[in-house]
């Protein structure tokens, strides 16, 4: 015989107004195992909780049912309450008579009847509850940051400042990311490199930060606090301990290739650093295009290297390391606007993307900051900027707003006027400027820099002589317009990294239909993922500008610091459990488990006649198990159960509700 206490909450008038509390109490008193019933105006309040604790002690209760709001609201509150009174926290059940009853059923009689049923469900279930203990696991005090753009750098710096070691894994030869490609930043027109490079240097010099550039995450195993990550350190073909970054090698290398960093507008060598301020300032050899790797001859770099740092025979290395927390900061990619045939990107040289323009206007770019159009090097006089290229266009598969283009287009308009007195024409759908100082910045573009903003889409861009004619519509005037431009800039959308979904599968996190990573809650848990211990920073979660990215990176870092600062982690005990006695060892549960938490193990058993046999049974790794229960349904013998949601629990609940 159990001793169950039922505590019915009024929630002010939220419940009491629509449910007859007295009737519920009277019905509860007659339910099996119930020895005590009480009502409270606000059970979650301090006096309400104290009343539960008092009753547990005075009435010697061994199980508690609280009939109140949703368990998603206060289950943890009341668990703490009962354990405060010396009862195991898992000997509690909640009857949700507010969200599922009083708030949705206007008929008081029917509502009361349902409330009684819901209380009975909880009473039947709680009778089957057993004390459960939370286990604790160790935490590896080291964080992994995937991606070395501004998000990754900021997150790593914050974690390192808090005294925790952190590793940045970056797939390109240098940290810096897209921000290193930008010229000025809105809305202040700070030079991007001037504010980024000090942070890059800080990251390189910080004792707590290890940079792993030209490296990629290959495999992730384990769980919160205990991730085992395999990192592929791609062969750089440079002995970085010897290399001084003097640059002789790349000045002597005869193989010229389009530079990825300059988006093909400039050139690099087969041995190269992507940009002058690169960190580490040590080159890599591009195996695919190196003359030595292709033909077995050349070795110019090796011949001229004063440090003897060239190592042609270097191979990829696989490094396995343990981490307690992971921050994903893999950023975005600029969308290739070729699908807009009408804009002629790829067909006309002087139709360029926003990011390409950043390189054209940048002092360390291919034109040394002189805005010359790619076709003939002429300085453009009239420049058309087309906004929403890709963004907000379901036909192109990008339904969302890329958020940054309105602002960077305004910036481009200002730079065009400031640097070369060119006249910018901006075709827009809407100008979206929600940010501190953003609307003022846009105003500056139109008022001080006389940018002509035309509300409408461009239907066609075509070459006429050495001009690009942009046909479009001014929807405010209801007229067709044709602008003869010298150059066209497409404010192309921000899209996911091409390998975003692959990395998500490696990490076991989810992504949305646009392949941006999904946060645990859109409003309340914006930097966490649904996989405990993995956090998100920057544009890999959705289009973001720099201030927002930095803010999110610091938020993710603080989450990681919080996790790493714990000596031990408590785990939820509501996990799968095997009844080895009836497990047949078929292991059908093994492939169904999304967490790879189930494996077979061999046990020894004495059978009739005193003989000992060996047989295989399922075994659950409680640290990996998340308690979803998929295995229980796959189990043919019923040996698999989820603690807290056992078959017996659920069947008892069904019985209680059908009475």
């Amino acid at each position: 015989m159990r001793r169950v206490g039922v505590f019915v909450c009024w929630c002010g008038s939220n419940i009491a107004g629509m449910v007859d509390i007295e009737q519920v109490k009277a019905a509860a008193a007659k339910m099996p195992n119930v020895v005590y019933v009480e009502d409270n105006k606000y059970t979650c309040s301090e006096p309400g909780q104290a009343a539960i604790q008092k009753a547990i002690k005075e009435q010697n209760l061994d199980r508690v049912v609280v009939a109140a709001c949703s368990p998603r609201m206060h289950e943890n509150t009341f668990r703490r309450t009962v354990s405060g009174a010396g009862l195991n926290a898992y000997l509690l059940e909640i009857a949700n008579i507010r969200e599922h009853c009083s708030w949705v059923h206007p008929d008081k009689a029917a509502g009361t009847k349902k409330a009684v049923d819901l209380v009975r469900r909880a009473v039947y279930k709680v009778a089957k509850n057993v004390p459960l203990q939370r286990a604790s696991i160790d935490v590896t005090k080291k964080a992994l940051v995937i991606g070395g753009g501004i998000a990754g750098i900021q997150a790593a710096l914050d974690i390192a400042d808090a005294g925790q070691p952190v590793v940045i894994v970056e797939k390109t030869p240098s940290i810096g990311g897209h921000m290193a490609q930008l010229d000025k930043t809105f809305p202040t027109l700070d030079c991007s490199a001037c504010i980024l490079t000090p942070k890059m240097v800080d990251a390189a010099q910080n004792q707590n930060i290890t940079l792993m550039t030209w490296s990629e995450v290959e495999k992730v195993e384990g769980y919160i606090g205990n991730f085992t990550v395999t990192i592929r350190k791609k062969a750089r073909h440079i002995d970085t301990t010897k290399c001084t970054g003097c640059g002789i090698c790349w000045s002597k290398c005869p193989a010229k290739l389009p530079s990825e960093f300059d988006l093909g507008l400039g050139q690099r060598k087969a041995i190269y650093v992507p940009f002058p301020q690169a960190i580490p300032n040590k080159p890599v050899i591009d195996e695919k295009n190196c003359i030595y790797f292709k033909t077995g001859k050349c070795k110019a770099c090796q011949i001229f290297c004063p440090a003897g740092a060239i190592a042609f025979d270097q191979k990829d290395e696989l490094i396995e390391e343990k981490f307690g927390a992971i921050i994903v900061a893999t950023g975005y990619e600029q969308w290739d606007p070729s699908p807009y045939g009408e804009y002629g990107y790829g067909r006309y040289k002087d139709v360029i993307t926003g990011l390409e323009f950043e390189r054209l206007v940048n002092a360390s770019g291919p034109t040394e900051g002189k805005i010359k159009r790619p076709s003939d090097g002429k300085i453009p006089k009239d420049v058309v900027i087309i906004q929403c290229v890709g963004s907000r266009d379901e036909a192109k598969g990008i339904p969302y707003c890329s958020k940054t283009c309105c602002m960077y287009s305004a910036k481009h308009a200002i730079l065009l006027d400031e640097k070369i007195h060119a006249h910018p024409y901006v075709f827009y759908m809407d100008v979206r400027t929600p940010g501190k100082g953003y609307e003022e910045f846009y105003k500056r573009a139109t008022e001080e820099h006389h940018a002509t903003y035309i509300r409408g889409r461009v239907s066609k861009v075509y070459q006429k002589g050495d001009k690009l004619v942009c046909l479009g519509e001014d929807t405010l005037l209801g007229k067709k317009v044709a602008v003869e431009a010298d150059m066209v800039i497409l404010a192309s959308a921000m899209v996911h990294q091409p390998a975003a979904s692959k990395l998500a599968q490696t990490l076991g996190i989810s992504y949305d239909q646009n392949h941006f990573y999904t946060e645990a809650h859109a409003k309340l848990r914006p930097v966490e993922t649904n996989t405990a211990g993995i956090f998100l920073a920057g544009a890999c979660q959705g289009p973001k500008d720099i201030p927002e990215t930095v803010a999110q990176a610091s938020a993710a870092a603080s989450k990681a610091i919080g996790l790493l600062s714990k000596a031990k982690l408590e785990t939820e005990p509501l996990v799968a459990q095997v009844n080895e006695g009836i497990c047949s060892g078929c292991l059908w549960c093994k492939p169904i488990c999304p967490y790879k938490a189930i494996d077979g193990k061999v046990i020894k058993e004495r059978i009739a006649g005193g003989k000992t046999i060996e047989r295989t049974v399922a075994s659950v790794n409680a640290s990996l198990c998340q308690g979803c229960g998929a295995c229980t349904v796959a189990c043919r013998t019923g040996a698999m159960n989820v603690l807290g949601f056992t078959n017996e629990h659920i069947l008892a609940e069904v019985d209680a509700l059908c009475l």
Partner: protein
Amino acid sequence: MSVNEKAAQAAGAATGPSTVAAATPAPEGWEPKIIGFACNWCTYAGADLAGTSRIQYPPNIRVIRVPCSGRINPQFVVRAFQRGADGVLVAGCHPGDCHYSTGNYFARRRYLLATRFIEYLGVEPERLEVRWISGSEGQKFADTVRELTEKIRALGPQRRLRETL
């Protein structure tokens, strides 16, 4: 189309009302009794949202919270019918949105079969509804309960598997 209807179509069964309908009329004052199995992360949260948004729906449903729709053993559904439930709702996250990444895919497959099994037992398959309702779909939860309640009301009491009358 609900999963039920799809299941019925997949099975090549007629999609109209089943022929094994109640033989005797419903007793006076009879109200459909519906048991809902809702996953903690989506549908239970959706039902909570219906509550916080004060979206009214018939009081015939009683919800049992489970971690995941992949936890809902068809055995529980049969038990509910045996104990006299007139209808059962099985609901979880939308495919692709499972908190445990794959649980609802298993549920989807299981209930394609379970619906046919229920029909084989002689219970109208319309009495078992499988729906995907997210944590932001309070209105959909309420609508689902309303539709299901009306459907069951039209079918009358479930007597086929009921152990005591």
